[in-house]
């Protein structure tokens, strides 16, 4: 079931006359941390939706290893972890209840996993408080743990650093590096070049639903991308 590579071939998604994605092709391999950069409305969220099997492409082909998204069996969805802009948490429930519910939904049992996730989010002592009382940063950390509970193979993160302080950003970055080292494919969308710099191993620059650059990350690229977004 596990896949080492995801491949998109000429994937487009239109809403009437509006193009959210235009013939996007990309390949990401196990161990990659891909940064999807681009201004708001560039199609990053739609692309993540397509990769998460929640958005059907108008045309084109999405493959997870040898499987296509069209036949996407439930087990394939179980290998994907998504942290979206809206955090996928129930504010009325406690942090522990949220994690326990999703753990059971993914067929994982055990308090230890939930406890470990709480500790990893830095919320060990607030596990029984309702999420509605949490700050944005605390929710963000909890949501990240929720998305990673089932040790997904494909990790999709939409603006994962929103509301996090520097210390938390470092923790999250370390977490993502470890995941990639263990063989996951990590894709993170952000418009914040500073935070992505130094973390990502590959950079894809999106604009108006297209990938306009795709290359290995290297120091000093930041200034160039700024220029590209500004100029393009």
């Amino acid at each position, binding site marked *: 079931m596990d896949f080492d590579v995801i491949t998109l071939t000429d994937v487009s998604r239109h809403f009437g006359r509006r193009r959210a994605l235009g013939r996007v092709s990309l390949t990401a391999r196990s161990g990659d941390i891909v940064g999807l950069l681009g201004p708001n409305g560039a199609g990053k969220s739609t692309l993540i*939706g397509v990769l*998460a*099997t*929640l*958005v*059907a492409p108008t045309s084109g082909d999405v493959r997870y290893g040898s499987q296509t998204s069209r036949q996407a069996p*439930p*087990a*394939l*969805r*179980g*290998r*994907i972890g*998504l942290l*979206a802009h*809206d*955090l*996928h*948490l*129930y*504010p*009325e*429930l406690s942090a522990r*209840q949220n994690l326990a*519910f*999703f753990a*059971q*939904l*993914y*067929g994982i049992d055990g308090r230890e996993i939930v406890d470990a996730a709480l500790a990893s989010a830095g919320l060990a002592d607030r596990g029984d408080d*309702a999420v509605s009382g949490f700050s944005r940063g605390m929710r963000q950390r909890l949501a990240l743990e929720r998305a990673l509970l089932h040790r997904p193979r494909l990790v999709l993160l939409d603006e994962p650093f929103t509301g996090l302080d520097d210390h938390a950003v470092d923790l999250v970055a370390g977490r993502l590096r470890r995941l990639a080292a263990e063989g996951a494919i990590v894709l993170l969308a952000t418009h914040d070049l500073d935070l992505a710099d130094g973390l990502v191993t590959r950079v894809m620059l999106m604009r108006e639903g297209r990938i306009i650059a795709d290359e290995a990350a290297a120091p000093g690229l930041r200034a160039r991308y700024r220029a590209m977004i500004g100029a393009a």
Partner: protein
Amino acid sequence: MFARVALLVLKKDFAIEVKSREILYTTLFFAVSCVLVFAFALVRDGRAIDDAAAGILWIAIAFAGTLALGRTFERERYGETLRALLLAPAPRPAIYVGKLLGIVVLLLLAETILVPLVALLFQAAFFARPWLLAGLLVAGTIGFASVGTLFAAMLVRSRTRDVMLPILLYPITVPVIIAGVRGTSALLQPVPDEPAAAMWMALLVCFDVVFVTLALWTFEPLMTE
């Protein structure tokens, strides 16, 4: 797997509702308000016109049901948790069944208070044939909720969901209302007309079977954007 996930979703909805009790209280209060509003329209000289009790009961259920559906899915929209549920490695129709069971349980709870209230206010002999009435209520509630849950779930993506839900739901569920009202008022006759009530109940059961099947069948393609 299917049943486990459906029950899990139901349990989760239950846990949220036990904490806040918001939907049960607001739904119930709204239903009682409906009963009062209709009482002002239909009571003359201290007595309700014939058959009013059955109609008022079912209208209150339908109106309050729409409210409950809207609120339940507002919870899944806030934080986009519906998408998180759809991402789970479970058959997607199981999510639908879980949500449907939650709505049905909630509405049946509200009905246990609503029915005695209407019986009291309108001197309606609801309890002459309690099992038949319970059968009509359960079958009717499932019918209404089966269509309602699917429509409310698909409207989560739509900006105009608040107004679209009743617009789409009421015309489709008119057979449920007709069968519920006629079946209930058959039971309210001086001599309860059991064959008529049973016939309406059979119609409701057919409706439930057809529309639950249709909803299970269309849920997955409807939920992918």
